[in-house]
């Protein structure tokens, strides 16, 4: 027992204790720096660049500080970092084979960021999901859908599939397909649609709204009503448009092929 205590005491020489304190101070200071410096730098980057660039700089800087601090703490404790780095190199090759999917996502992420087809805050549609971009990371893009669900889209998928950015341009067109069953209703239907576009302040006066006759068969005429709207009013106008048009059609006795 005495012997064991003696060897523990022998291990904690004055020099070793000093090293340990130094390492603890280094770790504490390092982690404080890793938490405080990146946000400040990111804010400066955000002034000139995009939100996405700021996020990226913040993460990379954070990781770099942590790695440097941990490596110097290990050196302080007398661990040979050179050997570790060599081992890490081998490990990377081994992991690279094992983690092909992740690597592919990582590389896709770099391309995606370079392409800048969308930014944080944009509304995009991909693989049936429509939502606001929360983050563009090295591995995946995070979305928040309209019903407040968090969706993670792997970058590889973003790169391989077509996706739509709904926020890219300031105005959008709403296309509403409509069918009527009688040829003689066509003029009145066109007038109703034109009046709706003219009187609703959300419908842009220019580019002009259009009512086009798209096709017909034995039972019905297909029309397409297209109006332009400011991007931020798209959902509002779309919601009220069909409602208002159907109301007017009913009031005017225009027959729709419903329940036939």
């Amino acid at each position, binding site marked *: 027992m005495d012997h064991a205590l003696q060897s523990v005491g022998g291990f904690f020489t004055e020099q070793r204790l000093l090293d340990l304190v130094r390492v603890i101070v280094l770790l504490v200071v390092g982690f404080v720096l890793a938490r405080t410096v990146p946000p400040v730098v990111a804010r400066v980057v955000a002034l000139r660049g995009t939100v996405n660039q700021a996020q990226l700089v913040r993460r990379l800087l954070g990781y770099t500080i942590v790695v440097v601090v941990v490596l110097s703490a290990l050196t302080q404790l007398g661990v040979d970092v050179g050997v570790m780095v060599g081992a890490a190199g081998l490990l990377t090759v081994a992991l690279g084979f094992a983690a092909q999917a992740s690597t592919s996502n990582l590389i896709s992420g770099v391309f995606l960021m370079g392409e800048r087809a969308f930014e944080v805050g944009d509304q995009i549609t991909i693989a049936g999901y429509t939502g606001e971009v929360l983050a563009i990371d090295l591995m995946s893009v995070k979305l928040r859908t309209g019903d407040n669900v968090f969706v993670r889209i792997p970058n590889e998928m973003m790169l391989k599939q077509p996706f739509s950015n709904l926020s890219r*341009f*300031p*105005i959008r067109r709403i296309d509403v397909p409509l069918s009527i069953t009688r040829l003689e209703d066509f003029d009145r239907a066109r007038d109703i649609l034109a009046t709706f576009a*003219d009187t*609703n*302040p*959300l*419908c*842009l*006066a*220019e*580019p*002009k709204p259009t009512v086009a006759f798209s096709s017909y068969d034995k039972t019905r005429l297909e029309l397409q009503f297209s109006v*332009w*709207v*400011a991007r931020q*009013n798209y959902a509002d106008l779309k919601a009220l448009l069909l409602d208002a048009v159907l109301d007017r059609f009913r009031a005017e006795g225009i027959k729709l092929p419903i329940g036939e």
Partner: protein
Amino acid sequence: MPWLEPFALDEGQTATVHVASFALQILRRAREWRVTTATTNDLAASEVVLKIPDPAPQPLAFTQDAHHARFAFDHASPLQLRPRLADRTVVVRPADPLFLMPGATVDIYVSTIIWVVLELASDNTQLIDRTAHRPSDTWFGPSTRVGELAYASRTSARLDPHELPHRPNRATTRIRLVNDSPAPRSLERVMLPAPELELWQLASGMLWTQGVELALGSDEEAPVRLDPGPPALADHGEAGAAPVRVSPPRLLARKSLLVRAISAIF
């Protein structure tokens, strides 16, 4: 006229203001103002009615979109009304095509609807900023990707200011058009930078903005120049008291204003 004249209401009193079809009612309670704004049924109304306080307040008869708001305070301070121009550029289209002969310098007079601001008389803290008839949105720019969201308005583009009807809910602007090109130029639409214009009140109560000048060169771009100071006597023709500035511009004039297009292409 109702503009920039401070008024105070005692507890329980109501003020009713009509500026053409724009209606505003303010009810003063112990610790709040209840403000209702609406577009009245009488769309052809063209006069100003001020009942401050209103001896027999009636609920507003409105068509749609009555807007209610309550403002709580520690101690009531006097209020005032201020007219303002639109908060976006207004794209004005002449009702009939107007052609400008080569070398001609022509003044046209267009009017645009005003917004009514209710504010504290002491420090201009804004309570409401609304209009009776929100103009339709439109897009002004060379393509669907580049341009700006604007309001659409139609004008008879009168060439004689004396033909202008007196409407208290509209402000008149003189637009001087200079056709420098050797060919007649059609004027399909004119961009009126409403947020950058000052608003002035004449002795008769009519609202005028500072003048605007457009040089229609041979290309699509047309420099826009804003006249400094009040509307010229030669334009409004009202001798007597000098015009009073009732509203500063909403925005400071943009540098790019000088090279803005007057006719977008679609």
